[in-house]
């Protein structure tokens, strides 16, 4: 659906994006993670035809796009970092304005607005000025705006930032529903738990892509498949039993680097009189991957 090949971007001779490449397939949730100033919003703006890129290619639905290409904007939906509405207008007026700029005819637009306001629990507030809405309500309204023209791909820039837990759950469920309906989602977030729960593919960016792939693949690539053995017994004795193996010991836990050593290590520990309580594969989360890679 969307292929980004080696795009770069400069602002007044300062390189802010360097050879960014990735691919987003239909129905994929793609998380784009990175520190502030890493270029996440710039990438989103480029892919929505708001900023031009200085090199590289963007291929959307098998067609090569040009910078500012209107085809990108027609088939994409954008949730901007701050919702941004005409505060003195009600929800209907706001949505009609943005919907009509997407070329939707009045009847279709009216029906779609009413249907979406109901789905997002905002129908009863439709006649109230948006300035009176809570942050969560504005975010829901901004999501309706991003989806009003039924785009193929939705770009969500920090969709749950500073939202209450209830609205955050609503947004996460919405993202999963979009995926279920075959829509692709580009998720830029600082919330690593959210990205871990939702993503099919993760890209870490810090002006250039640091690492990318499915989370499980990243975990095994970065940390290997370490095995943890929890025990009780003499630490020095354990160290002497395991002297021929690659391992680390902390808090009465042995971290074995090589999966193939497990049977032999367990056998030797038991023969050595060490009590073993648990044996399991070490779990890593996205936060550890993020910190490991960004620190590099």
């Amino acid at each position, binding site marked *: 659906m969307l292929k980004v090949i080696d795009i770069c971007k400069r602002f007044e001779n300062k390189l802010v994006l360097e050879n960014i490449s990735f691919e987003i397939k239909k129905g994929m949730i793609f998380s784009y993670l990175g520190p502030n100033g890493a270029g996440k919003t710039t990438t989103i703006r480029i892919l929505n035809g*708001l900023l031009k890129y200085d090199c590289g290619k963007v291929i959307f639905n098998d067609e090569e796009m040009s910078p500012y290409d*209107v085809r990108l904007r027609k088939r994409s939906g954008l949730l901007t970092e701050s919702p941004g509405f005409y505060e003195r*207008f009600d929800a209907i007026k706001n949505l009609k304005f943005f919907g009509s*700029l997407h070329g939707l005819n009045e009847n279709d637009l009216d029906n779609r607005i009413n249907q979406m306001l109901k789905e997002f629990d905002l129908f009863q507030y439709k006649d109230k000025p948006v300035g009176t809405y809570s942050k969560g309500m504005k975010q829901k309204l901004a999501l309706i705006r991003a989806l009003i023209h039924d785009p193929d791909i939705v770009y969500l820039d920090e969709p749950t930032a500073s939202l209450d837990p209830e609205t955050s759950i609503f947004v996460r469920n919405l993202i999963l529903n979009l995926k279920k309906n075959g829509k692709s989602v580009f998720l830029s977030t600082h919330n690593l738990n959210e990205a871990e729960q939702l993503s099919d593919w993760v890209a870490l960016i810090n002006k250039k892509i640091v690492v990318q792939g499915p989370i499980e693949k990243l975990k095994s690539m970065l940390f290997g498949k370490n095995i943890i053995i929890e025990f009780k017994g003499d630490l020095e004795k354990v160290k002497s039993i395991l002297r021929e193996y690659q391992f680390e010991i902390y808090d009465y836990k042995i971290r074995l680097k090589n999966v193939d050593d497990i049977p032999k290590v367990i056998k030797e520990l038991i023969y050595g009189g060490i009590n073993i309580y648990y044996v399991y594969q070490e779990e890593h989360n996205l936060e550890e991957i993020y910190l490991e890679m960004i620190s590099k």
Partner: protein
Amino acid sequence: MNLKNVNIIFQKDLKELLTLNIVKFSIIFFPMLFLFILSSVLIISFYQIGHLSNLPLSTFPVNNGNIHNLEIFYYIALNYLILLSVVPLGLSTTIASYSIVGEKQQKTIEPILATPLDDKELFFGKLLAPLIPTLIASYISIFIYTIIADYLSSNLGGIIFPNIQWFIIVFIFIPSSTALEILFTLLFSSRVTDPRSAQQISGMIILPIIIIFILSLFYYSYEPILLSIMTIAVIISDIILFKIAVKLFDRERIITRWI
């Protein structure tokens, strides 16, 4: 360029601007205030016409040694009409600055640019939104003024407006100078976050230029050719500034400067 999109921007801006009390007040109050002052002065001038005709003939541009009361009245009425054209300039600065700064304050420009809207469509929408209400409000006051001037002049033996000068001032000079003012405001509003700053900056730069044109008209308005030359100068300035503004009004500049 899709005119439907221009109209969508124009309609939205107009609706939004009319929710602002300062804009509603400006649109109604200033044209009526100028109309009241200038019509009052015109009525006073009408009753003083006998005294005015005692002024040296060199005071008036038509100096054939046999100046008629109607000609004196026409000269005065024409000059006040030119003064009335200051109204749309002030009004348009106020409205245009709120139109741009409003988008910045409410952070709505990014979602707008994320739609299939073209930069030029946005630009034309933003140009028309202050221009149309300003012209309508100004034309209402000008037409009332014209009726008053004609009613008074009919007592002196003739109808003075509309004539060629009236048409040039009302339908060419006023729209083109108002457009010039709006173009300046559109350019300078992008650099500030407060409507008042936008008004001050654009007013400081453009109003003196326009006022020079208006003052010049006091001397040349009697001659349609000279009046036309002055007006053409404004139109040329419009075209030059328009080209600059369109070039500078690109989405990357808007995104990086307005947000």
